[in-house]
Structure formats: structure tokens, C-alpha cells
């Protein structure tokens, strides 16, 4: 009896017995892939032919001038196919599914990014695809539901629990325990039972590897500080992993929602509201009550609205290797607005958390310093959410008029 997949005190594999054999198989295939240099080569090829990799490193000259401190660079994961870093993970897992000979994939999705990415992967590889999505998220992310369905996936709204991301994960597990012979569960973030945290981080490490090389090629040096938003933690793990062995400060930015004191947030590592627990198959910090029941979370960004966090990040926090900060909903809106007007790039609401924090710290740093912000996704595809967040009257009028056309 060997305990598997621990990062310090966190991680593990708290699996129902029915899934143990499935995880053994997955771990075996993953280990083979990891030790096979051809696999990573094939993966990089696939990502360059299908998903715009390597993604650019953009120097944010105007923002740099505005803040007058550190030079600011942006890693453009928004330029991946389907508009987010999620593509890195799903295409990698798609290659593993092919190795296992399975024919169907399932996934959970919050904002819909991971669902859309999984649906494209399934279409490309010829897999059947079912996406579980909390009913609340289905309502707030209709455009992504539309695309998943057009791509051939079945989208199942989840009506249990709080009807958001964590409930979609539970429902995906329930599907999996029934259909594991033919089906792989493409977990979207660096959470869940071993080997998911390691496996998802490994696929996302393509971000950090590239960014490191790009800095050395272009600047002849590494950044002083790297900022990434943290929901489950996969984009943060991806970009951070390029700099773990370097003298680079790593900053994870969580959703502080309506403020850390409000109780309405999704900050597990930068607030004192979370405590260590075991749920959804792994041990980490969870936002839970004293009985161990998971609490409702809040964020303006659906992709950060989650009770748990990668066990690897919990460990890195305890070891002091990564610093965690929060950005509130209103700080995020301001940062997003500023980034669009100054640089013409449109970060996703999730990614804008990293921008908001970087903007607070940049002015206090010197001109010799370099900041890297990971723009994990693009915001223009979430036009409904962002228009609501900006409370834009002209957009509202447009929607009212559009609705009238459907009634006509």
C-alpha cells in the first residue's frame, strides 16, 4: 500500500475503490509518456500545428511607461486555439486517450473554456464527448455552450449542489465510475486525485519552458517576478514551472471577489477562510465550514470560482516558494479596462486578476526589474460576461433589440 502523489502534506488519491484500476492504468500511460522523449516532441508539434505555439511574449510598453517601474511583459496564452491555456492540457490528454485506446471523453467546465477546448480536441481526435457544466454556469456562459454543441459535444447542465464548477466535477466523476472502460475524464486543472495535478501541470509546463527561453533569447535574462491567476491553478503551475529553480519571485493571484473580509470570494491560499481538507479525491486547502462542508464561493470570473486549489500550489505556499495575493472584482474590471486601452489586448476576467496585482506592484519596482504576466485567456469571447461586468448601457440596449427580433 503506497501513498501516491503527495506534495509535502498535500495531494494523494482519495479514490472510490471502483476507480482504483482506472487510475492505475492512467498513471501507467502517463509515466510511459513522460519517459518517452518522442511523446513530448509529438505534443509540441501538435501544439504548433494546431494551436499557435509557441505563443508570443509581448512587451507592454505603454503600461510600463504608465507605471514607471518594472518593465512589463505578457505571455500570450490567449492566442492558443479556443482562446486559453486550456488547449495545452486537453490536447496532451487527447494524445494519452489515444494511447489508452478509449473512444469517449468527458469533462467538467466552469467558464466553458475547458469545455470548448475539450470539445475541439474530441472533434479533432474523433472521440465522443460529454461536458458537465453547472446550471448557473450554463446560464452565464451560453456562447460557450453554443460552441460546445456545434463542435458535436453533449452538454449536461448539473442541477445538484451549488450548480457551479465543483458540482460539475462531482457529476463527471459519477459518469466516469460507470463508463471508465471506454471513457477518459479530461480533468481541466491541476487538482483532483493523483496523477491529475502532476499530469496537467506537466502539459501546462510548455508555457513556462517557452517563456524562459523567450526571455533568455530576447533579454538575455529572466524576469524578476511572475504573476498568474489561480483558480484550480493550471496556468499558474504552467508558467511558474519554467522558473522554479531560478531566483524569480512567483506570485499567484486569487479571486478576492467582493473583498477578503466579505466572505464572498474564492481565495484559498491568501485568505484565512480556507482550511486543509479532503474532497474530490485530493487533499488541499478548501473553503469549507468547521464541519467540512464546502462553502459557496464567489468570483466575477467563473474560471476562478472554485472551492479547492492545486495541492502542488498548497505545498509551494507552505514552503514559501510562491506568494499568494487576492484581486477584487472591481480591481479586476479596472485592470482589464486599462489593459485594453493601453495595449489593445483583451485578457479574460480570470487573467485580469494577475494584471490587477502586477499593476499594484510594478510602480514600486525598479526599471531594472522585469515583470511577466501570464495572460491565460482572452476576454473577447466572453463578451456577455464582460459587458455585464462593465455594465455597458449600449450593449444592454443591443441585447434588448436583439431579443425583440426573436419575438417578432
Amino acid at each position, binding site marked *: *500500500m503506497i501513498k501516491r502523489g503527495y506534495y509535502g502534506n498535500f495531494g494523494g488519491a482519495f479514490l472510490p475503490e471502483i476507480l482504483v484500476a482506472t487510475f492505475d492504468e492512467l498513471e501507467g500511460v502517463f509515466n510511459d509518456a513522460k519517459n518517452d522523449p518522442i511523446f513530448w516532441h509529438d505534443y509540441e508539434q501538435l501544439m504548433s500545428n494546431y494551436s499557435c505555439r509557441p505563443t508570443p511574449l509581448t512587451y507592454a510598453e505603454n503600461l510600463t511607461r504608465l507605471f514607471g517601474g518594472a518593465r512589463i511583459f505578457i505571455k500570450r496564452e490567449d492566442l492558443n486555439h479556443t482562446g486559453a491555456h486550456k488547449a495545452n492540457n486537453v490536447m496532451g490528454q487527447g494524445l494519452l486517450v489515444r494511447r489508452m485506446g478509449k473512444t469517449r471523453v468527458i469533462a467538467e467546465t466552469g467558464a466553458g473554456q475547458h469545455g470548448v477546448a475539450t470539445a475541439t480536441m474530441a472533434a479533432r481526435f474523433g472521440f465522443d464527448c460529454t461536458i458537465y457544466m453547472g446550471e448557473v454556469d450554463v446560464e452565464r456562459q451560453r456562447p460557450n455552450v453554443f460552441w460546445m454543441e456545434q463542435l458535436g459535444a453533449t452538454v449536461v447542465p448539473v442541477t*445538484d449542489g451549488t450548480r457551479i464548477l465543483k458540482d460539475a466535477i462531482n457529476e463527471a466523476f459519477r459518469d466516469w465510475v*460507470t463508463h*471508465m472502460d471506454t471513457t477518459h475524464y479530461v480533468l481541466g486543472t491541476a487538482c483532483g486525485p493523483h496523477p491529475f495535478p502532476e499530469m496537467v501541470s506537466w502539459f501546462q509546463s510548455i508555457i513556462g519552458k517557452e517563456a524562459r527561453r523567450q526571455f533568455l533569447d530576447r533579454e538575455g535574462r529572466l524576469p524578476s517576478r511572475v504573476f498568474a491567476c489561480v483558480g484550480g491553478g493550471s496556468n499558474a503551475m504552467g508558467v511558474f514551472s519554467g522558473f522554479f529553480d531560478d531566483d524569480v519571485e512567483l506570485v499567484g493571484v486569487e479571486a478576492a471577489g467582493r473583498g477578503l473580509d466579505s466572505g464572498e470570494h474564492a481565495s484559498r491560499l491568501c485568505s484565512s477562510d480556507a482550511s486543509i*481538507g*479532503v474532497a474530490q*479525491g485530493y487533499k488541499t486547502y478548501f473553503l469549507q465550514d468547521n*464541519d467540512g*462542508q464546502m462553502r459557496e464561493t464567489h468570483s466575477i470570473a467563473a474560471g476562478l470560482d472554485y472551492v479547492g486549489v492545486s495541492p502542488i500550489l498548497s505545498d509551494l505556499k507552505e514552503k514559501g516558494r510562491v506568494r499568494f495575493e487576492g484581486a477584487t472584482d472591481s480591481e479586476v474590471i479596472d485592470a482589464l479596462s486599462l489593459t485594453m486601452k493601453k495595449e489593445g489586448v483583451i485578457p479574460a476576467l480570470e487573467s485580469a486578476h494577475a494584471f490587477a496585482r502586477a499593476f499594484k506592484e510594478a510602480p514600486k519596482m525598479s526599471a531594472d526589474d522585469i515583470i511577466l504576466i501570464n495572460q491565460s485567456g482572452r476576454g473577447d469571447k466572453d463578451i456577455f460576461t464582460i459587458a455585464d461586468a462593465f455594465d455597458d448601457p449600449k450593449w444592454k440596449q443591443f441585447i434588448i433589440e436583439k431579443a425583440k427580433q426573436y419575438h417578432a
Partner: protein
Amino acid sequence: MLESYIGSRLNEKKILLMTHIVIGYPSLEASREIVRTMAAAGVDLMELQIPFSEPIADGPVIVKANQQALANGVTVDQCLDFGREVARQLPIPFLYMTYYNILFKYGVERFVDHMKAADMQGAIVPDLPPEEAAGYLAAMKTHALSPIFIYSPTTSDARMKTIAQVADGFVYCVARKGVTGDQTEFSQQIGDYLTRCRTATHLPLALGFGVKDKSDIEFLRGKADIAVIGTQALRLVEDQGIAALGNFIRDLQK
């Protein structure tokens, strides 16, 4: 202790009956009445599920019961009081069924101490595989309480033997893939699976997931030692009320 109780009951009955409730669903008072009704109708042992917000191994009926109990405001302390009350009053063994986070947050040792003091006999924790269970196993052993582990049709023979080394009381054999409450086809396949389980352990075998009526139990007679009725009893209470429960349970054992 649990194992010897099961052994002596099996001298009187060919197959025992274990039932399940979610504490606090539909209310604490109703739970009390359900437990009394079940015990009076001749149930041999019972699982008391402490509700959890993320019941990952349960199907829709029990998931809903967990949520409703929590929405009613049921706390872990109330559940433990409830367990103590019924375990002391009624002459059958009671087990807790819950997910690991409930024990973890309460403190595993403290939880197990409480179980002992409350005359509970053991616990089923479906998301705690033996690999992760060292602390729990030690605490259970100290108090001679039974950690009930699970076999599934996907569990290899070798793993079944390993699990048998740490299991106590009986082994809970899951009839099929999937979650609680789905349809199970009682066929030769289940017979073969139970034979495989029997080879791996000397402990009594309980079979659950999808057991719903007399013919299912009839099929299991001679193959398993305990039939587990979970979702079906919950459905019955929802559809016909607690009053219908006594006859249903008595009828299963005729």
C-alpha cells in the same frame, strides 16, 4: 465483534439485511422514526450516513438526500448525537457511512473515540482507500471498531487480498460499476464476482448497489452474507411514507 455478531445471526438466517439512511433526511425526527421502524421490522444492521456536500460515490437519490439534510441545517455534532442515541437504544449494530472529510475535519482520532463512546460498531468511508487510511486504521484498531472496506468488480484478486488484511467486520462488495441507486442485473456475473470475493477474504460479504426487492435478495442467498438496501428504501419513504417501510422490510425477509 461485528464479525462474530454476523456469524451468530447467520446461524438463524440465511442472509442478513443491512439498510441505510441519510441522517437528517427528510428531517432528524423522521430519521429517528425510520431507524426505529427498520429495526422493529427485523433489519440486522444499519448504515447511518452523515451528509456531506460532495458525495462523489452516490447517485441522484442519495445526493439529493445529502443536500436536503444539509439545507435543513443538520450538523456533524447532531449526527453524532443521533448515532449515539439510536445505537444505545436499539439492539442492532450501527455503522457510520460518510466521506473522509467529515472525519478529517472533526479529527480522525476524536471521531473514532466518539464512535466508541457512542456504541457504534464501525464505519464505511468510500473515498478512503487503504493507502490513505493509516491513521484511521490505527484509531479503529485501538477501539476494536470495524473499518469496512469495499470491493468492486474492477478490483484485482491481488488487491482484494491486500484490502482483506486491513478490513474488519465484513467487506462491502459493490455489485457493479456506477453510483448508488442505478439498475443492477443480478446474473451469473455477480455470482462469479462474489466467488472471487469469497476466495480473497474470510470476512463476511455484504453486497450493495441496486438491491431493490425480494427476488434480488433471493438471488444473493448462499452467495453473499448481507444484502444492502440503500436507495430503494429511500425511494419508498419518498413515494409512500415511513408507514410503508415496515411491511417492505418484513416482506424482504420472508
